[in-house]
């Protein structure tokens, strides 16, 4: 029962290897989940670890330290393909939430409605996991997210960074979020798209991911393939393109509505990523 806020990673990994510790970053998911009478615990606060607070742009990849808050990412100077991520970040809760919550925490919390996941899937992001005993491993984000509130994070591991391979030069991106109100809203559905067009305007690279319509957000591979060689306004999104999705009925909307809306949102996301408003 103690609160640890280490400043270096080695010390943090030592604490992480203790049993029954809770990892805390921005706290925006930690506190709402607290229950009356919950026993005190060992908390590992990762926000002071210097190695986790940097954003590094390399020739082949951009590395986001796990302690970066959404507002750090929104303000960072990044290529246009990251606009989808920034736009998602600006719709995570509110300014208050963005100033506290981390992108890494959004992944570790593994909500089906996590706003950060579709853009990062579209960006082919990888996550870097570290433990004192086994060192460092990297996993594609799609392998890290296992299900509702389930990840591949080991009991002694910390997520230390999100690594995004340099996206195709010249690609544009977009993020479409559907909710019942402005601000502070959990998505009914969302679509992230990163699209590159060739010189005559035909799509030659398409990455499209949908959130809130399955246990884990999904890339729409069939749709992506269908986009290739077409002008954005020639892309017609059809039910077949949505086979990866398994939406549910909940208070925010019915499953049928979600599929219907996603069809529209995908078309809009593709066109917006191509600069057509």
């Amino acid at each position, binding site marked *: *029962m*103690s*609160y640890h*806020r280490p400043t270096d990673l080695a010390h943090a990994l030592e604490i992480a290897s203790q049993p029954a510790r809770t990892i*805390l970053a*921005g*706290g*925006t998911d*930690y*506190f*709402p989940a*607290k229950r*009356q*009478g*919950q*026993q*005190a*615990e*060992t*908390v590992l*606060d990762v*926000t002071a670890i210097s190695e986790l607070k940097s954003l590094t742009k390399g020739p082949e990849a951009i590395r986001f330290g796990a302690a970066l808050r959404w*507002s750090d990412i929104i303000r960072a100077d990044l290529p246009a393909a990251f606009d989808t991520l920034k736009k998602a970040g*600006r719709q995570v*809760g*509110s*300014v*208050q*939430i963005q*100033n*506290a919550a981390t992108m890494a925490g959004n992944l570790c919390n593994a909500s089906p409605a996590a706003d950060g996941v579709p853009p990062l899937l579209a960006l082919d992001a990888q996550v870097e996991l570290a433990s004192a005993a086994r060192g460092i491993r990297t996993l594609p984000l799609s392998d890290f997210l296992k299900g509702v509130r389930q990840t591949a994070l080991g009991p002694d591991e910390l997520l230390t960074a999100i690594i995004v391979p340099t996206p195709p030069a010249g690609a544009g991106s977009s993020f479409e979020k*559907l909710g*019942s*109100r*402005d*601000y*502070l*809203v*959990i998505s*009914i559905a969302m679509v992230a798209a990163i699209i590159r067009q060739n010189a005559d305007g035909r799509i030659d690279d398409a990455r499209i991911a949908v959130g809130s319509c399955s246990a884990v957000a999904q890339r729409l591979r069939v749709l992506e393939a269908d986009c290739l060689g077409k002008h954005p306004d020639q892309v017609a999104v059809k039910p077949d393109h949505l086979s990866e999705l398994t939406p549910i009925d909940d*208070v*925010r*909307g*019915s499953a049928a*509505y979600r599929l*219907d*809306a996603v069809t*529209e*949102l995908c078309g809009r996301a593709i066109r917006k990523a191509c600069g057509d408003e």
Partner: protein
Amino acid sequence: MNKLDLKSGTRFKLNGASVDVFPEVGERLSETLRERLDCRDVKIGCDAGDCGACTVLMDGAPVCACLTPTHQAADAHVETLAGLHKNDPMTARLAQQFEDHGAAQCGICTPGMMVSATALLREKTTPTEAEVQDALGGVLCRCTGYRKIIDAVMARPGLTDDPKGQVGSFIRRLDGAQKTSGQELFSDDIAPPGTLEILVIRSPFPRAAFVFGDIDTFISDADGLEASLTAADIPGRNAFGVIPQFVDQPVFAEGETRFRGEAVAAVIGTPEAIKALDPADIPVTWTELPAATDIHTAQSDEAAILHEGRDRNVMCGGFVQCGNAEDALDKAAVTVEGHFTSGFVEHAYIEPEAGFARMVDGRVEVYAGTQAPVMDLEALEIILGCTREKIRVVPTGVGGGFGSKLDISLQPFLALAAMKTGKPVRLTYTRTESMQSTTKRHPSDIHLKIGADASGKISGFSFFGAFDTGAYASWGPTVANRVPVHASGPYRITDYLARSQGIHTNNPPAGAFRGFGVPQSAIAQESLFDALAEKLGMDPLAFRIENALQDNVPTVCGQVFSQGVGIRECLKSLQPAWAAERKAAEAFNSKNDVLKRGVGIAAGWYGCGNTSLPNPSTIKSGIRPDGRVVLHQGAMDIGQGANTVIAQIFATALGVAAQSVLLVGADTDVTPDAGKTSASRQTYVSGAAAKLSGAALRARILERMNIADDAELRFEDGVITASDAGGTHRLDLAGLDPDQDGFVFRAEETYDPPTKPLDENGQGSPYAQFGYAAHLAVVEVDTRLGTVKAQKFVAAHDVGKAINPMLVEGQVQGGIAQGLGMALMEEYIPGRTENLHDYLIPTIGDIPPIETIIIEDPDEHGPYGAKGLGEHVLIPTAPALLNAIYAATEARITSVPATPSRVRAAIKALGT
């Protein structure tokens, strides 16, 4: 308490000064600030980052203190509203802007709003409206409708406070400065840190049997637990209710619970012990029982009867009839009919229920937010089994009420705990506890048929509304009575039949919520009026004007007002906007295939005060020997502005500036009963009493000084100076004997509105006055997604006389925001939407510009002609929005909220 473990100590800068604290593991910064560092200006609304009330700056960046581990504040600079107000001239200026615009109503969100705005203004001195919305999007407000907050942050020109402060003038709220500086004390701000706390044990099921184990041993074995409370601890009757014939709700359920969240017991202990207490460890055995959670199941043969003697779970009904509706419908040239439904709506004030109680000289004192202090006291008399001399109810600042804080909630727990332990106690509901256990707006299930003759005159109106009143009566009988009286809308209908029923279910009690069922019935009536106009080929506005009530025309209750019926003028005032906005929408739609705009209108009326029942207010005032004018203002200000409006009326009658009056609040030990803040009655009824009180005080002074009626009075240090045609006269107050209240002059006057009982057909004079309203809404519908975005409102309100036009606008904008929420997004589902991220209320991004048109058709009974306003506002909003959606899409939404899912389904059903 504080472990002196230096390793876990946290040092940070708080409002410029270094502080050291020793937080528990995982302690929230909001708790540290409020309970360890006396920053009660940091408000807690949800403990989940959903409301933003607790916003503080951490190294300049706004964060929710409730989501910030105190340890993470190490070495940071934390700034709260009170500190910023003191240290940053920009925040102090912003406070002035907030006051000039009336941007703080109840004031509970004001710290969050102002701290967030400070962060924005530090980055950008002249932000755009969109930037203000982005910066403040994380702070919810339930009172203002946000527009005045935007105006204040953008430093748009505000009012110039009229120093005379008379009726009809813009003045700042008299209690505004304490709200914008973080000084106002709300219900959770009274208890000293370390006060014993109460945890209420609640039913996890809609209906359950339960048996207690050995609670006494559980308490005595646990460190820090002092006592428990169950039904067995209630010295008086284990029952409360707001209507004498329907007192049916237990403080603690006995044997069986009737709704999820119903209290069965409470545990009292130190803050540490209560924090560590897992409810599952308390020895209670639950057996879930079959429950009826909708009105149809509740009326079936299989359903258990919730209350003996209420067959088929029908609590009561209402009935109004005039002419012959069936005949008239048969004869009508056209008829329309429809079935309309709505769900539970949560009040969602940003301040959850909280309070403090203590024993003083053998009496129990209860400090809590309330809309009805004397009703609270009367309820406690029955529960505690003692006379009122033994009880003192001291209202705190109220962080929003909207009807729910008319009922007692935690007051009995506080009083019983203080009496049992003999020690001070406190209790603060969690957001979920507040949502589960307090009243809601009644879900409605309405069938309505309306006819018209070929000329467009209404011919026949047949209404049946069933309302889910939940597990207990609360204000359900009032809803059942009010709806048939109001379901006609403000129109002349000669052949009318309206029936209503309140049905018990195993849902939370439905009670009072701004409009008492009338917003629900207005959705049906105003939607069908549009359908009727369309069928007749008439313009919807012209159709309404044609059928609108006017002076000397009987209502459906046969009541005839010879004056003050302002609905036609309200409707007519919308004509320019109706023409212009429809033309603009048409132009927009001709260029857009996916986004479609529509313009809708709707009207409403609302009777002020109790329905055909006595409804008095008493206002006491006096002059102290030092010359200070004192007003005992017992009309609870829950944000709507009674402290200012009642003072303006009183001051005008006395002949002084409202700003010079010293207000004494609704403490039941010192202030007479000004009735409940309900039924839009305070401006009218308490205002009328305040006018009488001011006039009587003035008359006594004039008589004593033997001067003319038109004399001008001045109250200064111990002297009253009067100037009339005869010159200037002085009265030295030091020579007069003060009475037991310390007054040398005093007046105490009561006003009760003249009403007459309704007969078996609902014919009579239910209200002394009605207020009237008509709204125009412009929406934009994304036809592929079903999302609806309001673009603009024009709202015309006949208020008789606007005592303070700024406060009128505040009521209008706030009511529209609640109406929009009900129309588009709000539905409380027990067990599923028990927090403010699953239950959505409008944010600052959802409320478009609102133009308020104030119509003043004076009422003969109202003070200076004033009529009530609070509830009137949200009655037309929802149907105006639904009519606008129809105008945009041809999709008729008959079930609210009109969520994207529902709107899209309705559009798809058109097959276009």
